[in-house]
């Protein structure tokens, strides 16, 4: 770290966009997120088509517990905020502050994932599973895809944090943090739609 202090003063204002590689990475990642929108759009469309096909099993109205899902929502949306704070810290070239915000992001993400796993096991006990009905298949595929995105994001974040101490903040590493925060925002944004379409609309039964 100390060896990098000299470098920090030389780092440009937005180190993630300082090199062509960095700009390519950010552009490429935005494009990737465009494709991800279609992916989740297709999953949402499938879910909407099948959401009332519970096949005699438990429906959304019976299953969903809004306090639990609201808590998960708060955790994930807060983690979006903390990932922004980490990028702000990065722009101030304050690596230790950036790491602190990223660790908080990871903890909130882990909390969300724990709640989701708990929620899924509860549902399975109540007879709502991937194989129980078309509603079950669509629910676990949509929400599960999102959960897998969160899990992958956490693995990614751990890999980034593991190397921060050694590599520090450079024009090579800065785009990685930035791109991760883009990804994390996207995953949160998808959750906003899941919360609305799956849980809120499912709970009131419209």
């Amino acid at each position, binding site marked *: 770290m100390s060896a990098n202090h000299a470098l920090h003063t030389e780092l440009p204002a937005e180190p993630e966009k300082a090199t062509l590689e960095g700009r390519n990475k950010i*552009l*490429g990642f935005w494009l990737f997120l465009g494709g991800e929108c279609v992916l989740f759009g297709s999953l949402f469309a499938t879910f909407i088509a099948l959401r009332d096909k519970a096949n005699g099993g438990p429906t959304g109205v019976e299953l969903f517990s809004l306090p639990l899902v609201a808590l998960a929502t708060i955790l994930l949306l807060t983690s979006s905020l903390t990932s922004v704070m980490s990028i702000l810290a990065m722009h101030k070239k304050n690596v230790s502050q950036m790491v602190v915000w990223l660790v908080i992001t990871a903890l909130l993400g882990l909390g969300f994932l724990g709640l989701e796993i708990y929620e899924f096991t509860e549902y399975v006990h109540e007879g709502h599973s991937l194989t129980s009905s*078309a509603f079950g*298949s669509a629910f676990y595929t949509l929400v599960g895809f999102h959960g897998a995105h969160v899990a992958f994001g956490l693995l990614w974040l751990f890999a980034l944090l593991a190397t921060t101490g050694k590599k520090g903040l450079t024009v090579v590493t800065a785009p990685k943090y930035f791109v991760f925060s883009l990804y994390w925002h996207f995953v949160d944004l998808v959750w906003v739609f899941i919360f609305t379409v799956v849980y809120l609309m499912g709970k009131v039964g419209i």
Partner: protein
Amino acid sequence: MGHSHAPKKKGFLMDYLTTVDHKKIGILYFVAGGIFFLMGGLEALLMRIQLIVPNNTFLNGATFNEMMTMHGTTMIFLAAMPIIFALMNAIVPLQIGARDVAFPFVNSLGFWLFFFGGVLVNCGWFLGGSPDAGWTSYPPLSTSFSGFGIDFYALGLQIAGLGTLIGGINFLATIINMRAPGMTFMRMPMFTWASFVTSALILFAFPAITVGLVLLSFDRLFSANFFNVANGGNEVIYQHLFWIFGHPEVYILILPVFGIISEVISTFSKKRLFGYSSMVFATVLIGFLGFMVWAHHMFTVGMGPVANALFGIATMLIAIPTGIKIFNWLFTMWGGQIRFTTANLWAVGFIPTFVIGGMTGVMLAAPAADYQYHDTYFVVAHFHYVIVGGMVFGLFAGLYYWWPKMFGRMLNEALGKWNFWFFFIGFHLTFFPQHFLGLMGMQRRIFTFLPNQGLDFGNMISTIGAFGMTIGTIIFLINIAVTNSKPKKAPADPWDGRTLEWAIPSPPPEYNFKQTPQVRGYDALWVEKMAGNKGMTPAEPLGHIHMPSGSILPFIMSVGLFIAAFGLMYEKVSVAIIGALITLLCMLLRSLIDDPGYHVDPTEDKGVEA
């Protein structure tokens, strides 16, 4: 690997396994796609032999279903797409004056994912049955009435599709960010424009089939209920997802070919492309409309008259930008000094053939009429006119045109013309009678038919034509062999070209341009030629060029997913986890180990040898 000086020279095999050079990846795409093309062609020939006479017993029904499915799947996903990617890789960075694509590593990964996905789809031949539910694999046929083969289809295409998706992202980023100074969007060659729009279509279309295949796999592997009507499922969802991908896919295939035809016709007419900006507009419009018409594949599903009418009208609208293109090509030739090289023969042969395919397309777009045409040989004739008569002709044009740039040798022109005429006449013999067979009621995908129903003669002619196409293809292979035995001495600019790729040696050095060129107009090289300059004006001083290091990781990552797919199919969870871990570990390594690359000095001769 990964030192700041030039890496050790690798053996041929290791060189190609680890390469991140877009020109070598282009060759890999061409070779792999070419092999799959021959396999798909062989499957087509076997089907035509079965259909040469009524009540034939050359293939039984089950084998015919496998042939028919694998022919379609192979040709679309494993032959057409990769050969397009071969040309995009080989040419697009050169046309925009770039030293490489935006993500060389991802480029290599895209190829290996496609390759192992393709191998996986074909593994069914040896492991208990190939996919046999048609290239569309609609449920419930593909869930309740098909064997193990569909798993190869669903998982293989999933892996190959991932490769295509990241390839598309790569070319979008490359074309947006890596253009040489002065290469504005409205100065880009048409092939680059077409590749750009195609990449955008790939980006927004492929995730839909990803989801479609995921749902299909979940139903098959994990007993989910997406398409199980008894438990509340709905099969039409699959059809929608498939065609939301599937219709843009046909424009993904044809748009780059429109670009190739534009380049070839303009070069061999010695004229600027007529109506360049309207050509760009038409390309973008076709790309846009391509997403609005998917349900015209589903007119007979029962969506109702309003939906059918809307999708029918939207489909007919596409004839407008396509017509703009056809007239622009004709006007480019008008008054030009036309040279009928093999490349130009293919391009000129393309125009009327594609127009016929377009006309039958408009006929099919009328929902009321489509009720008659649906699932008959009329449809088969239509899409072979646009895909073979359109795309394959265009790919041949592109291959003859760019072969010297890709391989440093000129293909033989005499053999090329034999190749063209056998293929061209064989093609029309094969598919023209199929229009009438369809109108007379011959259904597609049937493995035999009864005599004396008016179908005997047309089928006989069609099979004879298929042999003509086969001979044409064999002549092309002979041409490649003959050309390869000659020394590598193609000139930098054999056709009196107009675009940047002809400003550098054939084949180009690994860094492409010694100095990034300054672009001063559309047809960048032609502008300099007309100004009396010898080649491009450099935009930077001579200096060391930074190159990315090769890597074996993309290959291992793809092997990991290949293993994981087998684990899923054979319900060996441990194998699936091991495969996935291999891939994740490679991703981790890629993230942890920064690649410093190495530097090449373009003034040293040895630097030129890649």
